[in-house]
């Protein structure tokens, strides 16, 4: 107890603002969302009728909702796989401490400052079907000139690229910090023992990086699930034909366009289950090995 202050009231007073904000704006609304998920709420009168699990049943059976779920999973897998692989590769290169390292590190972080909406707008420009550099380049090389946003697969791929790009800087900085923690002696010892660079990477560097990789896996998954609404809204509005309609976009449609608050709340609860699973996974591992700022 060395260095601790006595105090009966003060710690509670210090905690009060945080707890009050959390209770009023987070905990109570979350519980209310659970309650609403069992009701059918009229968009006109705002009056609710208890319907039990009917909202959940409707969601599970709905082709639209199931489609949105698979779009979200595809989107998240794309963002996480592309983002982690790409940023790890760049971070390993940058960790070689080449001349000009400082410049690279500064510049690589830039996309982190941008919003998903801005990232989406810039990539919509790059993929513009008539003037976008990507389209122009593709046309010059292959003669093809796809209208990206009219084709579901292409549209999803383009949104994945935009969303991944925005997170690269963040990922690279964390990988770089992790790479600095890999003991140089260990790598050198392995090299003396005749291990090649690839082998040293997979057998030594990659396992030591695993806490960082796992942390980034969770952060990128949460990002792909919950933070790309603006990007989708700017680039595709969920289209074409629902091909990029991630779960949060669907939720927004049902909650604020159709004003179906019961079924929207049921979607919130399903999202809570997903975020809960990811967060628990994170805390379980964080308690043991992963420490982050």
């Amino acid at each position: 107890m060395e260095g601790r202050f006595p105090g009966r009231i003060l710690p509670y007073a210090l905690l009060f603002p945080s707890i009050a904000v959390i209770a009023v704006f987070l905990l109570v609304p979350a519980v209310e969302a659970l309650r609403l998920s069992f009701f059918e709420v009229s968009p006109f009168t705002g009056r609710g009728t208890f319907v039990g699990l009917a909202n959940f049943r409707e969601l599970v059976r709905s082709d639209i909702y199931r489609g949105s779920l698979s779009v979200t999973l595809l989107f998240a897998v794309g963002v996480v796989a592309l983002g982690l692989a790409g940023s790890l590769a760049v971070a390993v290169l940058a960790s070689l401490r080449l001349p000009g390292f400082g410049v690279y590190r500064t510049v690589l972080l830039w996309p982190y400052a941008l919003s998903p909406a801005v990232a989406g707008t810039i990539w919509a420009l790059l993929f513009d079907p008539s003037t976008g550099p990507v389209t122009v380049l593709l046309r010059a090389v292959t003669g093809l000139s796809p209208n990206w946003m009219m084709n579901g697969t292409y549209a999803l791929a383009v949104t994945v690229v935009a969303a991944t790009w925005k997170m690269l800087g963040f990922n690279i900085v964390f990988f770089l910090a992790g790479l600095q923690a890999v003991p140089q002696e260990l790598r050198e010892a392995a090299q003396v023992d005749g291990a090649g660079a690839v082998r040293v990477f997979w057998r030594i560097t990659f396992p030591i990086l695993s806490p960082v990789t796992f942390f980034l896996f969770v952060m990128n998954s949460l990002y792909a699930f919950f933070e790309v609404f603006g990007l989708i809204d700017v680039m595709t509005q969920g289209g074409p034909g629902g091909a990029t309609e991630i779960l949060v976009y669907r939720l927004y449609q049902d909650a604020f366009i159709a004003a179906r608050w019961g079924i929207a709340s049921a979607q919130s609860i399903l999202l809570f289950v997903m975020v809960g699973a990811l967060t628990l996974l994170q805390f379980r591992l964080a308690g043991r090995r992963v420490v982050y700022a």
Partner: protein
Amino acid sequence: MLAAHVLLAAATLVIVFPMLYAVQVSTLEFQDVFVFPPKLLPGGAFADNLRRAWEKVHLGRLLANSAGIAVVVALGKICLSVMAAFAFTYFRDFPGKTLLFLAILATHMLPLPVRIVPTFQLMHDFGWVNSYQALTVPFFASATGTLLFRQFFLTIPPALSEAARVDGAGPLRFLVRILLPLSVNNLAALFLVEFLYMWNEYLWPLIVTTSDEMRVVQIGIKMLVATDAQAEWNLIMAGVVAAMVPPLVVLLALQRSFVGSISLGQEK
């Protein structure tokens, strides 16, 4: 080594190119956006494009709104999380401590989409729809910040607070005079993270603001994109540049402490 250099330079270029291209297009005249081959040198129309984008969606007002809410939320989160972390680390155990800590951690599991309808209803009940309160107050608590400062406070030798206590300094005096000056790096890092977070927020401002003068710059971008059949990319990109310069300036000013606080966390 040369190969690695070339690879890294190429990767960096790929990452930065979209931003440079956005800036490039923002300087072109409308008809020059569509010429082939694409113009690679900046044109002279940036000021004009920015002025037109500015008038079209009241960009000045939107930028001021975004800056205001981002600064207020970042400062609010810093204050509340410093206070909470201080309560958790510098006082003898008090009843309910673990429960309160868990409550703060729980915010990690409650992102906006999982409580969006009731939170919006609450704004309605408070009469906060289309107000600055709605854009700031619900964001004030921060699990990230509380954890960051708690972790940092735990690395400070207890002898320091013990000495302060023996000298008769109260806890708040110790916090303000000794602890906060030691925390400058973490304060800057958290300010950066939360400023960017709030500047870039999209969904909540979209649903909780209803009039043009309460909109934020992210929604302004969408308004620029959505207004025309043929996208006026030069105009849109002028808006994009206006929306990305302030967070980039904050990033450049504070990234040392951000990078520093990451490596601090990784070392333990």
